[in-house]
């Protein structure tokens, strides 16, 4: 009798726990949705991305500085690193050293990002286009 009572209490407690867990999860989900919605409302009302003439020049300065640094990084570390071979790419990348990582980032930046940034953000043809269109055009070029 004692054992049955204890088991029943345990089951009841477990049930309560499970129910409370479900409630907690659902409440936290609802809370998250509300927070997210509230944040988006705030962002919609107040957040504008403004790019003026002065910002543009500063932006160009940053682009060119980063490009020069990355170009030097590629020249300093010029060998193709055909040493990473493993079962998965993630495992191979985990063994990569910092200079090589910088070189990889520099390579992707110089080949895929920089030409698009120069064409789309420096030339006036694309000033009035949608922000997302600009991003896709940068990736295209």
């Amino acid at each position, binding site marked *: 009798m004692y054992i049955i009572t204890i088991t029943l209490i345990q089951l009841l407690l477990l049930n309560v726990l499970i129910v409370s867990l479900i409630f907690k999860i659902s409440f936290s989900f609802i809370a998250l949705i509300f927070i997210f919605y509230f944040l988006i409302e705030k962002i919609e009302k107040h957040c*504008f991305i*403004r790019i*003026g003439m002065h910002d543009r020049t500063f932006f160009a300065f940053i682009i060119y500085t980063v490009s020069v640094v990355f170009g030097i990084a590629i020249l300093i570390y010029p060998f193709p690193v055909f040493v990473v071979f493993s079962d*998965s*790419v993630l495992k191979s990348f985990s063994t990569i050293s910092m200079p090589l990582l910088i*070189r990889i980032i520099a390579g992707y930046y110089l080949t895929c990002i920089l030409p698009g940034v120069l064409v789309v953000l420096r030339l006036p043809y694309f000033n009035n286009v*949608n922000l997302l269109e600009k991003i896709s055009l940068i990736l295209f070029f």
Partner: protein
Amino acid sequence: MYDPLPFIRAFLISLVAFSIFIEILRYSLRKRNKDTCLSNAYSKVTYKVTLEKITLILIVASYVFLSYFRVLLIAPLSGLLRSDPANYALFANKYVYYRAFSWIYIGVPIFLLVISYIVGLPMHYAFAGLQFLQALLPLSFYVSIIKFSKNEKVGLIATFLILFLNGLTSLLLLVNYDMLISYLTGNQLSVLWDFLFKRTGSPGSMNPQHLTASTLDISLVLFSIAYTYDFLVEKEKQKSSLYLSSLFAGAAFFFHSFNFVLLFICMLMVFFVIGYKRRQVTSLLFLTVIMIVFFDFLSGFYFISYFLPLRIKYIKGVGNIINSILFIKFVVIF
């Protein structure tokens, strides 16, 4: 390209030359258009961050993340990514070192080879890191639909449906019971892919799992159509739309497939014949042909010199003629 160092140096010098060219062009444009809207647009550009844009950015981010997740966790040559990444490496090396042709296109293999040399990784690993280009697919869908509908919500819903439900194409599974069973038992990728290729043909289908040549092809096609619409239909005509439309049509030819360019030229010729904005259509047609030749020149005249004379059967002339006739009929009815 046996020794990568001269290639890297040449690449960096060309980048410097390109940036100087862009800066000179920018300076001359500013000087020429001092009092026009082109220079006024410089003064301040404001973007409003809307709910639709944030949602789309979340969709794009999750799409790119899933692609990285899929590619990074598996071995690139295991076959789970199909044979494409391995074939890109194989065919690029075959063409660059032995001038041997393999596929109908060489754009993506050469693109990956160049990135591999600059990044300093083997091509499979360079390919794995390049998954951020998957963002092009949702963005191009969204932008092209917005150009037609002028409504951000329509663009967002269409992009969401196409990416996560794969549009209405998954309904094709219901037509074939065996395919459906195979799909439900875990053979998702190849079933949808093969089935769609059989039924609709490239680029009617899409492969949303990871970056392939069709990712670039479909995005370029969508952009080309959107800019053509912008150039021919919109009241405020911009010259940039003309250039971009022909550029993307030529790039789609270079990167993946010439089917779209054939249909595109057919469509423009129909417009020319029926007399719809003949002057604009002629300029677009002319520029598209120039872009095709330019991109073929970039690949060392792969298509004209190597592929076309030897593998004429790959052109599938009959199929393309039927496609073209159907497309022309569609355009005329429209």
